[in-house]
């Protein structure tokens, strides 16, 4: 079970800026480095400056507790975006010393040390160059440590230590098992590791040395993948090779029109030309791309931008034509006003940017050969249909978080990248419970929910229902002649009048459930307040017992979905 460390260990340097979130927040707020400050996230402090720590403020304290200890403490808001943004300066400064650094998380840089050590002469010289470089260029104080393996390097950086090669395991042995959490980079992973650490402590395993003395097989049997990861990390080994910071730039091609152009034929020609140029540029630099961003600028200064996925593996010669089609569809849809975007206007420039650039030959195909035949066939079919109907004609769908059945789906034109779907993992209180309806109306249509006397059922503010629903009338298809005739008949109550919605015959209600209130986005213009009711209709008379999802909103009933 022993894995030879020689295969999996990389000599690493780690550059660590202590208390990064608070240091970044103070820099962004324009405060001096010696003021007591802390960053508040959720209910506790997540980072504390050195001055505040000296005053007795600790990580994890509540806001009020911290202010009692240190009244002049400045509380700063948490902002992951700011942390990452500010850290770019540090990464850029470090990259001036060593190329190819990896940002593990804001505040922690991983640097491959082998080549750079040779260049600078010794590890001490490299560490000195890094610290000086970051202090000069980015004006932040940092610590550098070097060791074999990830955890040893991180622990070494906290003490500015240089651990000799091959002795990481001994170096780590006296540290407490709590140090394992330092190597966890994501929040989810950290939670798992902290759970593991608490179990280890309760089992009486206080130090990493005691933990690594356990046989790996037993650790895997008891703790699973997290245990295996922790065991390897604690022995001073690596789990994955370092991922270098991407140094390939995006490749961009732009065509500037001499005269603003609006005719689709003219634009299609240019689209083909620009796509060929991009293909040539990609080929010249020996790379391929995973995504292409199409940018069109109008003479009014508006920008229309879309991102398209490209199949990295299969598009050899067809790339230019493929992209030209995408450009043409995007512009056609936009100029004809069918798709959303800024107001149509003549274009002054058209640009293509290749993103997710990878070196030729380093892209990964499927494990067994290329794209499977069925996949390629299906993609070709979709492309043919897109050619017939335009780009918006074919949709790809994803499930996303939401309350009503309509909100739970994100639909995008096939092949287009959109914003991230809402998380499914979040709790969505008030979500309509499963099973999901098989017919979800694209826009809700009016519905008549009547009580036994034929009056409309009303749901009041306190979710009191005026009478149990007894009859349901759906809106009839306007092309249905019989329904129209019945509507004109005096017995329907509309003498001679054809106005108003035409209703189908009333159907008796078998059972119903609800009302369930959902009040969404009440603070915004597009807020909605509705009460949902599930109604199962009685079967018989040639009708199957359908069930519908109806909603009462702003004084009337609408049909949202049908469980058919």
């Amino acid at each position, binding site marked *: 079970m022993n894995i030879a460390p020689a295969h999996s260990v990389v000599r690493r340097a780690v550059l660590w800026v202590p208390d990064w979130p608070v240091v970044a927040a103070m820099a962004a707020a324009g405060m001096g480095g010696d003021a007591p400050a802390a960053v508040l996230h959720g209910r506790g402090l997540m980072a504390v400056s050195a001055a505040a720590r000296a005053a007795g403020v600790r990580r994890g304290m509540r806001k009020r507790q911290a202010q009692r200890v240190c009244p002049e403490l400045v509380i700063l808001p948490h902002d992951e975006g700011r942390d990452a943004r500010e850290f770019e300066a540090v990464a850029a400064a470090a990259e001036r010393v060593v190329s190819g650094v990896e940002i593990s998380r804001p505040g922690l840089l991983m640097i491959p040390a082998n080549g750079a050590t040779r260049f600078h002469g010794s590890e001490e010289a490299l560490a000195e160059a890094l610290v000086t470089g970051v202090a000069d260029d980015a004006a932040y104080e940092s610590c550098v440590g070097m060791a074999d393996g990830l955890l040893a390097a991180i622990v070494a950086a906290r003490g500015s230590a240089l651990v000799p090669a091959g002795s990481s395991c001994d170096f780590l042995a006296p540290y407490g098992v709590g140090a394992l959490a330092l190597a966890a980079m994501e929040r989810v992973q950290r939670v798992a590791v902290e759970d593991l650490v608490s179990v280890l402590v309760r089992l009486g395993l206080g130090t990493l040395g005691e933990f690594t003395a356990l046989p790996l097989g037993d650790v895997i049997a008891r703790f699973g993948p997290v245990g295996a990861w922790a065991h390897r990390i604690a022995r001073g080994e690596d789990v994955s090779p370092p991922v270098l910071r991407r140094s390939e730039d995006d490749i961009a091609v732009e065509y500037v029109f001499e005269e603003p152009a609006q005719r689709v034929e003219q634009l299609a020609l240019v689209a083909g030309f620009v796509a060929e140029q991009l293909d040539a540029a990609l080929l010249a630099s020996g790379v391929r791309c995973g995504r292409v961003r199409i940018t069109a600028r109008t003479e009014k200064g508006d920008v229309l931008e879309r991102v398209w996925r490209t199949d990295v593996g299969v598009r050899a010669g067809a790339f230019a034509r493929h992209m030209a089609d995408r450009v043409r569809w995007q512009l056609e849809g936009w100029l004809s006003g069918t798709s959303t975007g800024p107001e149509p206007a003549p274009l002054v420039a058209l640009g293509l940017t290749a993103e997710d650039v990878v070196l030729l030959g380093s892209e990964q195909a499927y494990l067994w050969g290329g794209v499977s035949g069925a996949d390629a066939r299906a993609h070709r079919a979709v492309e043919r249909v897109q050619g017939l*109907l335009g780009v918006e004609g074919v949709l*790809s*769908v994803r499930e996303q978080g939401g309350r009503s059945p309509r909100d739970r789906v994100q639909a995008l034109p096939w092949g287009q990248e959109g914003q991230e779907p809402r998380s499914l993992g979040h709790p969505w209180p008030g979500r309509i419970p499963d099973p*999901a309806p098989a*017919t979800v109306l694209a826009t809700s249509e009016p519905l008549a929910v009547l009580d036994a006397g034929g009056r409309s059922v009303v749901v009041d503010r306190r979710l009191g229902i005026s009478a149990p629903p007894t009859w349901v009338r759906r809106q009839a298809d306007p092309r249905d002649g019989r329904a129209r005739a019945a509507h004109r008949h005096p017995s329907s109550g509309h003498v001679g009048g054809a106005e108003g919605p035409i209703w189908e015959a009333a159907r008796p209600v078998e059972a119903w*459930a609800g009302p369930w209130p959902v009040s969404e986005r009440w603070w915004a213009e597009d807020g909605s307040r509705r009460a949902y009711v599930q109604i199962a209709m009685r079967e018989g008379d040639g009708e199957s017992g*359908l069930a519908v999802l109806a909603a009462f909103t702003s004084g009337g009933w609408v049909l949202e979905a049908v469980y058919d």
Partner: protein
Amino acid sequence: MVNVVQADSSRGDRLSAARAALKGVEERLSTTRLAWDAPTLPLAECLALALPEGLRRGQVVAVTGSTSLMFALAGEASRAGSWTAVIGMPHAGVVAAAGRGVDLTRLALIPHPGIHAAAVVASCVDGMDVVLLGSRLAMSDADRRRIAARAREGGSALIVTGPWPGAHAVLDVKEMHWDGPGAGDGRLRGREMTVAIQGRSRGSVRTVTLAMDVDPQGRGLSRRAVPPDGVATAGVGDAPARPAKGAA
């Protein structure tokens, strides 16, 4: 190549030998493929009663009255790696489809094919394994026949809403019974469907009861007592047994 048959063998022996020889030639030249050799797509367990011969490639299954049943027919095949296209169904509930096993990464939705309906369906039949069609597509009967022929040739299964001339199986939902809601309490939990099935190869209409949604908490369909042999069968012979459990 001809089997030598002894003169004294009975007539039946000679007939079977001749048939075997003919079959051997057919297989070698692959001139005809017998109907029951057509490859089938995987089908959910609860639908085995409805389509005992399975969902064949190249077949047309017409479904009336239930979109859930269409998704259930397509679901297991999609889970096993098939591509699915949904054409002319702008109101398709994608979450329900996913719940019945349709893999959304291999699902293309074409809600409004408009006047290109025939061309769009034809190209999807060529490229996709399972194609679901809505009821209001601008296609003539001649278009439908052509598409059915293409499906037979290309080996994709068509699941269509409403009537379709020459469909191999017609599934008509007669009754749907919901379990769960009361008078303002509970929620929709389980459902069972009574489906009349008419096959092109079999003359009579069979009626089976399918448990489509089964409440995961195990509150089964308890309110209506169903006789153990299911519902009355209009056809002769195969009286369906009630499914032990359905795939929800």
